């Protein structure tokens, strides 16, 4: 048996996957002797859903091609949204700037230089009204990439819909709202881990009751992988986070089958083709088993692991940037062969700047070629039964289980965060990979090898510096004309509800409608929830 499982992945060498998993020259039936079709694979649409959550997959419906967008002021992003909708896109995906992601206002001292740079700047409901001006929220599904202040931005979204007269039960879309991976990887956390999860559960509870078509959480491995984890770690820590949210929601008194069908996932699709496909297949099998066995889910939809994939941003280089097109294409193919429900393909220039229109168009075309020309969509899970892919799927499943067991033994995910375990594992893996590249065991085309010096630069998109002052000025205008007493009342209610363990969503919606800022509402929450010092896990 080629099965070699270690929670701590080995040294990365020439004959290993990029995660350090040894690969044999040739795989045979001996490598999958224990693979029982009915129990381990089953037909697509059947438990444990290794082969896919739907019977017909892409024959019936292609994945959603969803490109992430947002920059500058709400007005600028609104124009981009309308442009995308006119081109036939039915879903929107919103990128917020760093101050918004960190729950700070545009005029905060720490926001300097970051306003509107990596996404759209949002301070108050006025920005959301502008962002969706002329776009009916009952007609489009909107995805929001936001975490620490997710409950506040969700409140903005609901308040905007209320003002448009769109019933809440018609709202569709997804909020990323996965705070645990921020502690593992992306570092956009504000409140301490347990208190942060409580906010996530508030949104799950609220959406379960009032917004049945909305996905309140997108449990994300993408950022964990970007931070340098292995494929197995990405799988394990993401599912571990999902298990934690499920457990916390059950402890709140929610029925697993009431909320679990709306949990969705977000994975990275990286360079190592077969390992990535195996990762997606293992993810489905694991989640189905955990939901059924750990939580007693009855509804099949609770057991479905539906996921969005994004090609690996960290695999792109600014040297010979056209080569990135090929990297993205192979990564996208792995996501599709792994059965993703939606996909973002990175633009070739994304390692240097926000994408130009030409670059983003090529990225979209990459998905269209995959969907309409390559034929990979004709049959479901085409690599099932491959000795190699099935063996890898088994190995990844076993590795993830071992990690999850280890985290359970530590006392759960919060304990594993607080004692620094998850971050250490990821940082160790990132350094191992970097050393493998330095040694030449892993080659990078155009970077470590096949370098040529006379490169022509490509066109880059620049965001002007005048956005920041304009956004700050707009914020001051809103502050000047709002009802200060109503803001104060709402902020006090937010603090009180957070302290009294009441669901904070109604208070946040009230705050949104009073035009309280993101920063003010974060401060009101912080008063009750506290702030997490990054030093505790550095």
């Amino acid at each position, binding site marked *: 048996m080629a099965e070699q499982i270690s929670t701590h992945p080995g040294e990365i060498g020439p004959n290993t996957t990029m995660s350090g998993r040894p690969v044999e020259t040739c795989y045979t039936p001996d490598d999958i002797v224990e693979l029982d079709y009915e129990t381990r694979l089953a037909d697509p649409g059947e438990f444990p859903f290794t082969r896919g959550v739907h019977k017909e997959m892409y024959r019936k419906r292609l994945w959603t091609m969803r490109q992430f967008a947002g920059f500058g002021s709400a007005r600028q992003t609104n124009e981009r949204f309308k442009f995308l909708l006119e081109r036939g896109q039915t879903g929107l995906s919103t990128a917020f700037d*760093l*101050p918004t*992601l*960190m729950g*700070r206002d545009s005029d905060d*001292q*720490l*926001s*300097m*230089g*970051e306003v509107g*740079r*990596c996404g759209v700047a949002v301070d108050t409901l006025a920005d959301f009204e502008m962002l969706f001006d002329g776009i009916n929220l009952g007609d489009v599904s909107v995805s929001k990439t936001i975490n620490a202040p997710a409950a506040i931005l969700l409140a903005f979204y609901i308040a905007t819909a209320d003002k448009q007269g769109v019933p809440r039960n018609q709202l569709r879309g997804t909020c990323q709202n996965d705070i645990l991976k*921020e502690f593992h990887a*992306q*570092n*956009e956390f504000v409140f301490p881990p347990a208190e942060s999860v409580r906010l996530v559960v508030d949104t799950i509870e609220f959406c379960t009751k009032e917004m049945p078509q909305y996905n309140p959480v997108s449990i994300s491995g993408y950022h964990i992988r*970007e*931070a*340098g984890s292995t494929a197995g770690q990405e799988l394990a820590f993401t599912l571990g986070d999902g298990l934690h949210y499920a457990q916390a929601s059950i402890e709140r008194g929610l029925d697993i089958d009431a909320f679990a069908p709306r949990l969705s996932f977000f994975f990275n699709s990286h360079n190592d083709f077969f390992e990535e496909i195996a990762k997606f297949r293992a993810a489905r099998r694991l989640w189905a088993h955990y939901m059924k066995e750990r939580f007693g889910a009855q509804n099949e939809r609770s057991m479905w692991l539906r996921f969005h994939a994004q090609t690996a941003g*960290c695999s792109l*280089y*600014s*040297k010979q940037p056209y080569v990135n097109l090929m990297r993205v294409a192979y990564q996208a193919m792995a996501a599709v062969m792994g059965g993703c429900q939606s996909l973002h393909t990175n633009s070739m220039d994304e*390692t*240097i*700047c926000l994408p130009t229109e030409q670059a983003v168009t090529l990225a979209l075309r990459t998905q269209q070629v995959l969907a309409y020309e390559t034929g990979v969509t004709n049959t479901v899970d085409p690599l099932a039964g491959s000795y190699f892919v099935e063996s890898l799927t088994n190995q990844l499943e076993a590795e993830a289980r071992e990690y999850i067991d280890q985290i359970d033994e530590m006392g759960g995910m919060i304990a594993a965060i*607080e004692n620094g375990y998850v971050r250490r594992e990821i*940082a160790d893996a*990132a*350094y191992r990979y*970097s050393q493998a590249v*330095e040694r030449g065991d892993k080659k*990078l085309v155009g*970077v*470590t090898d096949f370098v040529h010096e006379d490169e022509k*630069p490509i066109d*880059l998109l620049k*965001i002007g*510096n005048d956005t920041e002052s304009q956004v700050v000025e707009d914020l001051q205008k809103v502050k000047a004309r709002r009802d200060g007493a109503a803001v104060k009342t709402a902020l006090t209610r937010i603090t009180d509800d957070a302290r009294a363990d009441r669901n904070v969503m109604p208070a946040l919606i009230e705050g949104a409608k009073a035009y309280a800022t993101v920063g003010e509402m974060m401060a009101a929450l912080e008063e009750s929830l506290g702030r997490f*010092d*990054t*030093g*505790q896990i*550095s």
Partner: protein
Amino acid sequence: MQEIPTRILLAKIGLDGHDRGVKVLARGLRDAGMEVIYTGLWQTPASAAKAAVEEDVDVLGASFHSAAHMTLVPVLMDELKKLGRPDIPVAIGGIIPPDEVTPMKDAGVALVFETECSMEQIVTEINALATQVHKRRKTAIENGDLDRWVEALKEGDRASVGRVLSWIEDGATVDDLARRLPPVDSKTIVVGMTGAPGVGKSTLIGRLLKELRRRGKTVGVVAVDPVSPITGGALLGDRARMTMNAGDEGVFLRSAASRGELGGLAPTTGAMVEVLRRSNVDVLLIETVGAGQNDVTVRQWASPVVLLLMPGAGDSLQLEKAGITEVADVFVINKADLPGAGKLEAQITETLGSARPVVQTVASHGQGIEELAEVILRHGGKSDT
């Protein structure tokens, strides 16, 4: 390898949390023999400049991934100037578009590293830069600048304190010190903080700092970390664990590598304490490597000596051995929310008597910190008279 190890500060300035690059780099530079100080996330240009000046690093390295460098780097340069150290070279890396390399160099950045740079190239260029800095420092001292820096100590001038500390780290002898340093006239309470790795020293000190500042005390910290016996490099992470007061004017923090010393201290720790006492801080905290039994040396300068323990870490055995437990003035049981805290406290009083205070803390949640500050200030005040 460098004659004097290269000291570099790695900073993440702004709200951007992309720290994979900076963490890989920190390890790579350590493994190449450098002393690497990492600030942790979310620094302002002012707090990063302050850190570089206090640490008197050879190079300030900053990593940017969110396009904020064009705004933040010029501010960083201004802050270095304000602190009297525009000479500290700045290197930047992360995502710097090719057409922004020249504007960054025009703004005064010494080195710009693109994403694809190899570790080898970064190491070579940083070391070359550091060699120039070391030469400049030597010349400045030969030209008599040291007297000016020593003179400015008592005003607590950050840049001067940082520079005098480097002079010591570069190997000033005890005689040099005695000849150069003025007599002490401050009432600094010197606190030794020691304990085995993993008991939470840095986190506790971070909290204690905050509490002492709340009480209006100015605080100095010398945090000693071990060097690798193989490469001579070190990753000095204490700053990252004490971020809460990073930009605070009333705090001076210096990280020191133990440069070959086996015990919990650097060969120069004693001399550094002497320098910082002359800069008139109210409280000086010395954090030691925490080798446990070897740390009795800290007694020479510190009173009180605070020994950190935690429940369930084989402490009863530790308590029975001679050494640090005999010289400790205060015992802290950190992570007191873990089972066994009460039992450990009972063991301490049983084995060592009840004359010395025992404080239970949960540093990660700030519990017991007020009491600890109280005990330390009371003890320090007492030994002073």
